[in-house]
């Protein structure tokens, strides 16, 4: 059996743990740059805030219901996620963290346990230890666990926990799940299935293998088999290394000058370089993209440029140099840029690099320099020491006007109690 545990309105719940005054008020969290709604407490859903609603369109609603608004504080959410996952890890020999707020637990070895009681124990422990409420779905396969989890959160009777063991319960659950809500069925496939008169997960599970394979490919077939209770998706205990890394952000206010774009690009290139070193890879391809604001009534421009470098690199200085070469080749004056980003790809393990015959870059020196840089920055905080190309006073950084303190990771930000 497999359990899917996911946190209810995770980001909003994190904010409430350290701020009990808002625990039963409508709370929303905004995306990077205080743009759109990315998390809503139940109360915020109840007063009609939708996922993705831009903040500026919510002004009246925020006033009317005194909604509490937060900028996204990923430092806090990341640390709270660690706590939830650490707690869950104590309940299973195999834990697969699937995203910042959900993970699969392999419960296969617990034959003699009452799974319903065990799931409640998991839910209560996470709530007690971290303050975060979770929903739990337990079933024979990942795809069924997803369905169980969805119903657990929707049905008032389940109160957030649902175990699907008996055939008639599984059937009932499949019948009340729309086909578009099945894990891995996208909007396109959903439309196609509707056209063929398949509207529920139950009807989809009844289809012949050949038909499913033809219309939904092999991945779809495996998922349909999972609906029938045949596990096809293993718990990935060891995830493969990433094959490309992207770092990109929107700017707080429109950027027009090349120098500001260069600083932003250098900053993202440096972040990519750091992630590369962390996983022990070097990259041979560096892509830079720039874009204007699609929603603004100004001239539009999107462009990107990929440079293939003579030998794979993972040093900040190399990547910044290449990224800015790429940027300068696509920069056009006269546009207001909203976003730029750096993607590195075409990886090689750093310990078996082929050195070019005409390689003049002093790889060894760079390696030592980067090691020193990483040590300094891990001790004194991100970007304490950085390349001058990244700039000092970054005017292009994010708007984060409603950021909560980093209660759990910064000593100066911990809660204060009055004695």
């Amino acid at each position, binding site marked *: 059996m497999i359990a899917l545990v996911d946190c209810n309105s995770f980001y909003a719940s994190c904010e409430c743990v350290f701020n*009990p005054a808002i625990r039963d008020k409508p709370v929303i969290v905004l995306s990077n740059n205080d743009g759109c709604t990315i998390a809503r407490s139940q109360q915020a859903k109840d007063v009609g805030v939708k996922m993705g609603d831009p903040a500026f369109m919510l002004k009246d609603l925020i006033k009317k219901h005194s909604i509490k608004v937060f900028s996204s504080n990923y430092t806090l959410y990341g640390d709270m*996620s*660690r706590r939830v996952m*650490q707690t869950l890890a104590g309940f299973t020999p195999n834990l697969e*963290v699937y995203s910042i707020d959900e993970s699969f637990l392999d419960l296969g070895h617990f034959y003699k346990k009452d799974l319903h009681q065990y799931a409640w124990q998991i839910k209560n422990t996470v709530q*007690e230890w971290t303050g975060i409420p979770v929903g739990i779905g337990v079933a024979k396969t990942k795809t069924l666990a997803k369905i169980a989890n969805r119903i657990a959160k929707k049905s008032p009777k389940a109160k957030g926990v649902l175990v699907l063991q008996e055939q008639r319960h599984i059937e009932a659950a499949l019948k009340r799940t729309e086909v578009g809500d099945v894990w891995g069925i996208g909007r396109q496939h959903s439309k196609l299935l509707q056209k063929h008169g398949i509207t529920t997960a139950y009807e989809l599970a009844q289809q012949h293998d050949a038909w499913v394979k033809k219309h939904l490919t092999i991945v779809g077939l495996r998922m349909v088999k999972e609906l029938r209770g045949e596990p096809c998706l293993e718990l990935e205990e060891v995830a493969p290394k*990433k094959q490309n890394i992207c770092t990109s952000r929107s700017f707080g206010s429109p950027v027009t000058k090349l120098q500001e774009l260069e600083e932003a690009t250098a900053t993202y290139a440096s972040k990519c370089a750091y992630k590369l070193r962390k996983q022990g890879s070097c990259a041979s391809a560096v892509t830079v993209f720039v874009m204007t604001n699609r929603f603004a009534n100004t001239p539009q421009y999107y462009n990107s440029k990929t440079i293939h470098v003579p030998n794979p690199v993972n040093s900040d200085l190399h990547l910044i140099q290449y990224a800015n070469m790429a940027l300068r080749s696509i920069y056009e004056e006269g546009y207001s840029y909203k976003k730029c980003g750096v993607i590195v790809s075409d990886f090689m393990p750093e310990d078996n690099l082929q050195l070019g015959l005409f390689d003049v870059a002093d790889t060894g020196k760079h390696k030592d320099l980067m090691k020193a840089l990483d040590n300094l920055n891990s001790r004194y905080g991100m970007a304490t020491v950085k390349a001058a190309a990244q700039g000092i006073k970054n005017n292009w950084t994010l708007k984060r006007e409603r950021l909560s303190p980093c209660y759990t990771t910064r000593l100066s930000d911990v809660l204060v*109690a*009055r*004695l």
Partner: protein
Amino acid sequence: MLKETVLQNRDRSVFGKAFFVDGHEDLELPLFGSKIAAGFPSPATDYIEETINLNRHLIKNPASTFFIRVMGESMQDAYIRNTDLLVIDKSLKARDGSAVVCWLEGEFTVKTYKPAGNKLYLLPANPKYKAIELTEGMDFVFMGVVTYSIHDCLKNQL
């Protein structure tokens, strides 16, 4: 810190992202040994024998442990004094006599947990302050049991 990776099925198709948790930062202090040896001085005293990791000693359950700073005098007889940094564990149950952090009527506070008969009290540790009886309908949230109080002796010299 969360590390992010892309998850792939055996046929290389991607089915999601995974985030892996890195361990929490270690704070290590060197512990020097010095044995008084008769005869030759031991060269070993110049070396660090092991390190003390305060996290390991002060944090039993990293998932449920938080820090909180306190202001005020109401707990001074329990050795919880103005500006101290408290280590609190949410996973522990409050017992008779535990110092607890809670949210009470609109602010965080620290008091001694005291069940008496069928009543519950939050007691100060300073004769100048009054006991508080916990009753139905109060704005109350239990935040954790205080496990350690870290007192800055340099800043608070008498």
